[in-house]
């Protein structure tokens, strides 16, 4: 439940993430103080609107300086996803590239292998480091996080190849009914596409953590 006198939590967290360390405390303090004054004298909606506006405008101003690496990383991922969807759309529709069975035989096993060969804590830590752009961890934490993405990406790619080959074996065994060959081939290739997409995203994540590790030295 949101306390009436507390500034909106998400706006506060966004601002805290985006602000440089040197001015984080005075800026958040000033905004809290003014928010309290506004919520006492105005309607809470107006006070919340004012706080959100301040947080978004100020946060956007600083995030391109303080969180530049993270912003560029997210931009590259979104660009990749956007271009992929555009290519799918232009090739005849996105729906033919979505197959739940293929997703289930690539992603859950890849994550299971990663958890099994690293640790639950290691996987969580890897994603936290990646998304928080944290340069204050020790060398061991970065190495362990890189290993997480390495295992996840390689497992995804190998699973994609493996499941594709299984599909081909199944197709080869049923060549007498050639009418199903086209759709069966497309589905088998789709697992390879998913596996390689996961491998590529993990490669970028691994390199990103390498960069964070080098900035720390």
């Amino acid at each position: 439940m949101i306390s009436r006198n507390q500034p909106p939590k998400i706006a506060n967290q966004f601002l805290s993430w985006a602000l440089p360390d040197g001015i984080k405390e005075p800026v958040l303090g000033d905004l809290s103080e003014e928010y309290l004054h506004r919520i006492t004298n105005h309607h809470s909606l107006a006070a919340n609107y004012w706080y959100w506006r301040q947080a978004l405008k100020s946060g956007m101003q600083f995030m391109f300086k303080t969180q530049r690496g993270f912003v560029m990383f997210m931009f590259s991922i979104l660009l990749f996803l956007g271009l992929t969807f555009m290519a799918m759309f232009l090739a005849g529709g996105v729906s033919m590239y979505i197959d739940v069975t293929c997703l289930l035989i690539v992603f859950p096993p890849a994550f299971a292998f990663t958890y099994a060969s690293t640790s639950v804590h290691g996987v969580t830590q890897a994603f936290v480091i990646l998304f928080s752009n944290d340069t204050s961890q020790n060398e061991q934490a970065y190495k362990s996080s890189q290993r997480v993405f390495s295992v996840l990406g390689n497992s995804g790619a190998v699973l994609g190849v493996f499941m594709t080959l299984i599909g081909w074996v199944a197709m080869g065994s049923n060549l007498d009914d050639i009418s199903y060959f086209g759709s069966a081939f497309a589905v088998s290739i789709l697992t390879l596409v998913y596996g390689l997409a996961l491998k590529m995203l993990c490669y970028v994540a691994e390199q990103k953590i390498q960069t964070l590790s080098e900035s720390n030295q």
Partner: protein
Amino acid sequence: MADKEKFLGEFEQFLLLSILTLGDTAYGSTIRILLADTIKRDVTIGALYTTLDRLEKKGLVDSKVGEATPERGGRAKKYFKVTAKGHHALKRSKQALTSMWENVVLSQLAHYS
């Protein structure tokens, strides 16, 4: 060389004047409120601190950490004070503006607008 020193920007002047007006109580919130009340300019806290940081780097203002209060969520204030260099820069900008305004009568320019 003193002649090649740049003059203060409009917002920099407003900030220095606000700090001088507020005296010992000049910190982010009070400066923001003063600007909104006096010149009706609702600046974001980010823009305010960016300019204050620039003025501090130029040596025109000085800052010190103040007290933390419950209404600030236990966070400390950052008080600002105009330095001697800041006083000098303000005086110089004012003199430059006064000189430029000396022979200007706005009513004669009205038909250009």
